[in-house]
């Protein structure tokens, strides 16, 4: 089992005929992801790795059932492409686009919220349930990072995710579903919004979050734990403790403004709620073992 995406999830790829779309569609298929249709305006009738291409999402969903859309679409066309997926009734959308205009993101998120949809991204590698399915571009073939297992992972980063997840695997665990919400100032979905699914997923025994300075996503996770709505073990690594205030270092979302967004406030909130917080990636494994044991897992 997993959250968001599983072996049965029927996937549409928007921008499938582009270099990136074609390349990663191949990898998605190789991993077992059920890519059932692709969309590129003007290219209906073509096939990419055996997947039929349609002019529009509406035409694709008219001829095959689709549950999730994976976008390989440039940032400036992302809002239109996400709307197209949502308006066609798709409620799970992942966009890897890096550089979506901020006000577009506000509108995408607002529209998704009004529909009860979860749009993941931008500036992310996507979502992966290792061994089952992938909406994105993960080096799932690196077994020391993307080993199937029982730990849910949520992250704002890309390379750092590999770094930290490798520590999870080194500690003897594997990943149920990894959700990369992305490093933008306005992630289209937020950490806390996936907690109910992880809570409900019997295959997920614990969750690791890979956070960083800026924003309030980690505090929102702490609030969910504190409110008793998320009760599984949770370990966090949060980067940027020594980052200078006011400078934009790293992701667009990784900026401290005034009193909000400091790592200190995130660590304090999470620890107060009972989560364990690692100060460096190499500490994640031991904390996870500790939390799992306390929760009665081995």
């Amino acid at each position, binding site marked *: 089992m997993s959250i968001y995406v599983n072996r049965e999830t029927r996937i549409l790829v928007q921008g499938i005929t582009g270099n990136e779309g074609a390349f990663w569609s191949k990898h998605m298929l190789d991993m077992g992801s059920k890519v059932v249709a692709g969309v590129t305006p003007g290219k209906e009738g073509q096939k990419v790795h055996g997947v039929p291409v349609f002019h529009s999402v509406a035409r694709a969903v008219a001829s095959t059932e689709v549950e999730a859309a994976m976008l390989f679409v440039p940032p400036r066309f992302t809002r239109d492409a996400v709307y197209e997926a949502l308006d066609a009734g798709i409620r799970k959308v992942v966009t890897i686009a890096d550089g979506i205009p901020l006000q577009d993101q506000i509108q995408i998120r607002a529209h998704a919220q009004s529909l009860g949809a979860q749009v993941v991204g931008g500036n992310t590698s996507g979502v992966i349930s290792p061994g089952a399915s992938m909406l994105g571009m993960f080096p799932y073939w690196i077994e020391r990072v993307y080993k199937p297992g029982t730990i849910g992972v949520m992250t704002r980063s890309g390379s750092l995710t590999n770094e930290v997840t490798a520590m999870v695997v080194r500690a003897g665990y594997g990943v149920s579903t990894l959700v990369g919400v992305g490093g933008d100032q306005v992630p289209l979905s937020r950490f806390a919004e996936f907690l109910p699914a992880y809570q409900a997923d019997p295959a997920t025994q614990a969750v690791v979050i890979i956070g960083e300075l800026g924003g309030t996503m980690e505090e929102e996770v702490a609030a969910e734990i504190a409110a008793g709505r998320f009760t599984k073990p949770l370990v966090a690594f949060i980067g940027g403790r020594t980052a200078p205030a006011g400078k934009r270092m790293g992701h667009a979302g990784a900026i401290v403004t005034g009193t909000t967004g400091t790592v200190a406030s995130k660590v304090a909130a999470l620890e107060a709620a009972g989560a364990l917080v690692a*100060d460096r990636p190499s500490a994640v494994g031991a904390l996870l073992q500790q939390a799992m044991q306390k929760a009665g897992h081995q």
Partner: protein
Amino acid sequence: MKLFEYQGKAVFQAAGIPVPESRLVPCTSASVAVIAGQVAEAVRELTAASSSDNKPAGGDTAIVVKAQLDMGGRGKAGLIHVARGPEAAAEAARTIMGKGYTIPALLVERAVSIDRELYLSISADATSANFVILASAEGGVDIEDLAKNRPEAIRRVVVDPFRGLQGYQSRGLAYDLGLSDNVAKQFAAMVEALYRVFRGKDAELAEINPVFITTSGELIAGDSKLIIDDNSLYRQREFQLAREQFDSDAAYEAAVEGIPYLQFDGDISLMCAGAGLATTVFDLVNYGGGAVANYLEFGGPNYQKAQRAMELCLKNQSSVILVVTFGTIARADVMAQGIVDAMKLLKPDRPIVTCIRGTNEEEAHETLRAAGLEPLLDTEVAVQRAIDLAAARKGREKKDGRA
């Protein structure tokens, strides 16, 4: 992209927001004496053109000289001076230029006679996915301090990103701040104009702090803080990256290349792929007692820019270059080859520590070994190696009496 005060005010004025009459004196390529002379001339122009409502009987028009640079607390830092007359303004300019900051320009403004100050800003709220207007009858202060100490003094209006700002909202905000009649109307119009700027220019933040209410009951923007979303510059063609917006040549050159870069004064140059990983390596260097010379990312779309990245690192007086990657799309083999090629070309005078992992890492490691580099696999080991190398060099330099 954060605009300077004068740039923001020009945008405001074009949108119908009143700003003080002003002249700009650029400072990039002139001596202080020349600048002071230009300031005096600007004051003469402003005085000649003015209807002199702030001119005391027999006295000189009040003028404000404001350093244009990206920095909070300019007033406290002595970078804003009020002066009367060309000579006093020139003297103020000399004082400001002598403070030791890099100042791209001075803004010379006619002072206004202030009765009260308000605060007004518009930004995006990532969580609720709305635009948010903040306003306070207590302007001119740091809004973050106000939010902490007297949150009840801040009014918040939530704007639906599809319906947009409604008349009742800007009007209601004016009344909620205790404004009335003509001032309320002007404020509502200012809110609407600022919202047009915010939306029309793809701003992350559009702030007027303070909004002056003059003694004659006019509203006027006392400052501007306008940050344009970098991701929207493709559709905001009027805004272009310029050297004056950066602290250093390296930072500007990096920005033009699209390479995230920050200048520090330590001795370990970071050359990392991935924003989160780079930030974490930055932390690890600091934890270990090292000092970063520069933060640099060459991952993501820049993973083929190893040469350009190394050039930037070599501009620093660093002792070691620390390369850490764990790439997905940013292929390890491509980055490793880039590093090796750059070394051949640039012949770096300092050691390079590499910890390159991810897609095609085996080939990457062969490439590095062939070039005489040790492919480390553990980030923390690599960081410690860099710290040790930097410390060793520092030790040598101390012994050599060069430090």
